[in-house]
Structures are given as C-alpha cells and as structure tokens.
C-alpha cells in the first residue's frame, strides 16, 4: 500500500496490522495446542491454551483501541477506511476462534481424566479442515488475496459435510450409553467448535474480499451455486 505524507498515520496502521497478525498467530497456536491436548491426551498442553487465551483477549482490546484512535485522529477513507473496519472485525472473529480453542482444551482436559479413548482420533479430519480454513483466511488477509478469501466457502461446505458425518457417528456412540456418555458429549461439542471455527474463518475471508474489492459477499454464498467465481478486484 502506498505511503501517506503524514507518517503518524502509517505508523498507526502498521501497529494495527502487526497486532492483528500477532493475534492470528496466537489463535492458530491455541487451536493447534488444544487439539494436540485432545489427540495426544496432553493435559499440560490444555492448561497452556487456557492460560494463553488472555493474551488474545488483550490483543483484541488493543486492536479495537488502535482502530478507534485511527478513526478519531485520521478520519480514514477509501482503502484505509475498509482496512480499519475489517481489521477490527477480523480481530473479533479471531478472539472467538481462540475462545473455541479454550473450550476444546477444557473438554480435552475432562476427557483426559478418564480412560484413554482411541475415538478422539475421529476428530482429526475435521480439525485438519478447520485449521486449513483458518490458515487460508489469514493468508488471504495477509496476501491481499480476495480470490482465496472467497474460495473458503467451498472448504467450509466440506467442513460442514464432515461435521454432519462425525456428529452422526458420535451420536450413535452416545446412544449406546457405554458408560462414557459425558466423553461422547464432549467430543460432539468439540466437533461443533471446529465447525464454528470454519464459519468464523469464512467471515475473515469475506472481510478480506470486502477489504480488497469493496464488495460485500456476506450471507450470499449459500444462495449461489458452488462454481461461482469470485468478484474481480
């Protein structure tokens, strides 16, 4: 992006983006560690995630504060205005994703208190798809890639399909009531969190499309056939 004559403006935007990217890195790390806590039965890792969430919360506050300061001081217009608004919205989505990671970590901790369950591995494909969605969402923002941002809808459809399939399997196990119904319920809720992380990542992709091309595609994709092309910038 070209520079402003008024350098304070550029400095403030740079701080905002740096904090947002740090927030994204921490959020991805929290999700990775929460799922490893579940898949490897590592309760210490679960505790680490729960403690680390406050850093993400603090960064969300900081992004909001810098965003508001920029709105107050510099009255951004055009690309700058879209950048500030989308960055603040993306930070809200990242904070929610981190909250889901904490929820996963807490449920992993409870599951780990019982006998090891091989079936926790059933969640791995769902996690891989949710993680890929989050990674692509932030890549689309970082690389100004609105095509990638819009392509998340297709990945989310696949995530939804995997989620439905897994929920059916987990519900069947729950109905068997083999004495670990609480653990099966935890796994159902973890699957639900991963599905929500996909939705929140899609939101980030949509914000990126708006940032790059000023086209608002929210709430549109479910009405359109999957082969729709992304808008040209």
């Amino acid at each position, binding site marked *: 992006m070209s520079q*402003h*004559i*008024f*350098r*304070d*403006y550029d400095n403030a935007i740079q701080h905002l983006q740096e904090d947002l990217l740090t927030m994204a890195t921490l959020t991805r790390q929290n999700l990775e560690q929460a799922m490893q806590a579940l898949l490897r039965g590592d309760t210490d890792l679960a505790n680490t995630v729960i403690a680390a969430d406050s850093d993400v919360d603090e960064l969300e506050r900081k992004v909001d504060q810098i965003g*508001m*300061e920029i709105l*107050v*001081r*510099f*009255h951004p217009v055009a690309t700058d205005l879209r950048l500030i608004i989308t960055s603040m919205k993306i930070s809200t989505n990242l904070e929610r994703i981190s909250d889901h990671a904490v929820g996963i970590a807490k449920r992993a901790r409870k599951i780990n208190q019982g006998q090891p369950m091989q079936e926790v591995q059933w969640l791995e494909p769902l996690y891989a798809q949710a993680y890929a969605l989050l990674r692509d969402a932030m890549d689309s923002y970082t690389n100004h890639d609105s095509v990638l941002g819009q392509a998340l809808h297709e990945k989310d459809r696949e995530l939804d399909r995997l989620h439905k399939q897994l929920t059916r399997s987990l519900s069947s196990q729950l109905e068997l009531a083999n004495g670990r119904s609480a653990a099966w319920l935890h796994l159902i809720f973890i699957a639900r969190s991963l599905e929500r992380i996909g939705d929140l990542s899609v939101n980030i992709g949509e914000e990126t499309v708006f940032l790059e091309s000023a086209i608002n595609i929210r709430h549109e994709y479910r009405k359109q056939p999957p082969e729709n092309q992304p808008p040209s910038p």
Partner: protein
Amino acid sequence: MSPEASDKIEVRNLHFCYGLTCALKDLTFDIPQRQVTAFIGPSGCGKSTLLRCFNRMNDEIPGARVSSGSIHIGGVDIQHRSVDVVKLRREVGMVFQKSNPFPRSIFDNVAFGLQLHRGTNRSLLNQAVEEALISAALWDEVKDRLHESALALSGGQQQRLCIARSLAVKPSIILMDEPCSALDPIATAKVEDLIRTLRQQFTIIIVTHSMQQAARVSDLTAFFHLGELIEFSPTLKLFSNPAHKLTEAYLRGTFG
C-alpha cells in the same frame, strides 16, 4: 529563560480584555513542554487571543491588556515589566495563518532573524540556515535555489519557509495560528507531518478551526467557548469521550 530551561507554560486566573470587553475569563491550566497542544472553539472564543498572550503580541493592540492573572513560561512571569519582549519573541516563535515571507531570497528569509539576534558570521549563518530548512522539511526542495525569491515558492513551501524562519532563532515554543488554513490538502499534510516531527524538540501550540487537524496533530486539546476554557484533555480522550456536554455538542456539530 534559555533553551535548556523548562518551557512549561503556566496560566493562572488569566483575564484578558479588549477595552471593556473581556475576551478571556479566569483561565487556569498548564501546557506541557515538547508536546503539541491544540486550541479549538468557535470564532470569538478567545483561542487566538490567548495564543498571542504567550509572546505578548497583544501588546501592539491599543486598549488590549491582561487585566488580572498571570502567564509563566519556564517559571518567568512574562507580563513582568523586566521581561524583554524581543527576547521573549525569540523564545516563543510564531507562524501565522497566511504565510508572510519577506520579498527577499529564501536564504535571507531564514537568515533575517539570526542576523537580527546573533550577528552575521557567514559560515555560522550558512549552517544555521541549512539546519532550519532541514528541520522545516524544506531543504531538499530549495537547496539549489537558496538565492531565488521566496515569493516564487508555492503556498505550502512559503509556510514551511516561515516555520524555518521561526526555527532558525532556536525558540523553545512555537505558536501556530491556523497555519494550514490557506493550504491545499497535500501541503497541509506536509506541514502536519512537520509539526509531529518538531514536537520532539519544541513545545507547539496550534490554533485551528479544523477539528480533524486538531485530532491528527495534537497530543492535548483545549476547547474554549466565550472566553472560558471548557475542557482540556488528551486529544484522544477529548475526541472520543468528552467530559463536558458543550464540548460534545461542538465536536458533533449540534452546537447552538
């Protein structure tokens, strides 16, 4: 007062009158050094009058006077009869609404105050002029035409030349009375960027009718109304959460 001394400005119970008309009423506040302080408020609120009190420019207006109270700069009561007004104005420089270069060369404009205050050692003069023009972010644009007329510069360059002229005599405080009101947006951005850079070395007070400009350049903002100081706060606080309903009304444009 010396450049090393504190240049904090302390205003205490200040009343100022033009004849029988009171323009400033019981002002008490401190302006910290090495920061940008903006004065905002509707026309006639007294912000320019107060600005001119700081280097006693109002002395030139018949009937205008500080009727009570005081202004101390660096601990010195500037109203005291022992104060040398010429020296005060060297410490407290001023940039006006309309750029006012002398009809002489760019070099002479910057050197003028120096020659007046410090004599004419040529090499020192050359160095001081260069430093002032660099500080005013104008050197790169004029270094090859220092001896051309200042009147050939654009409006924005002329205003930065006037800032360089103020800086050359090494003041500790710079007063700016709507310095960008005659400039286009690009020239305004250059002057605003310069103001933010200069705050590392100087105490800057800017009177502006542009609330956006106050928000962009200042660290602190004072809002005046009918000669009274209504609110004086950090700029972000004043613009995002003003404490006084009159400030909020003025900022939101629901005033009156």
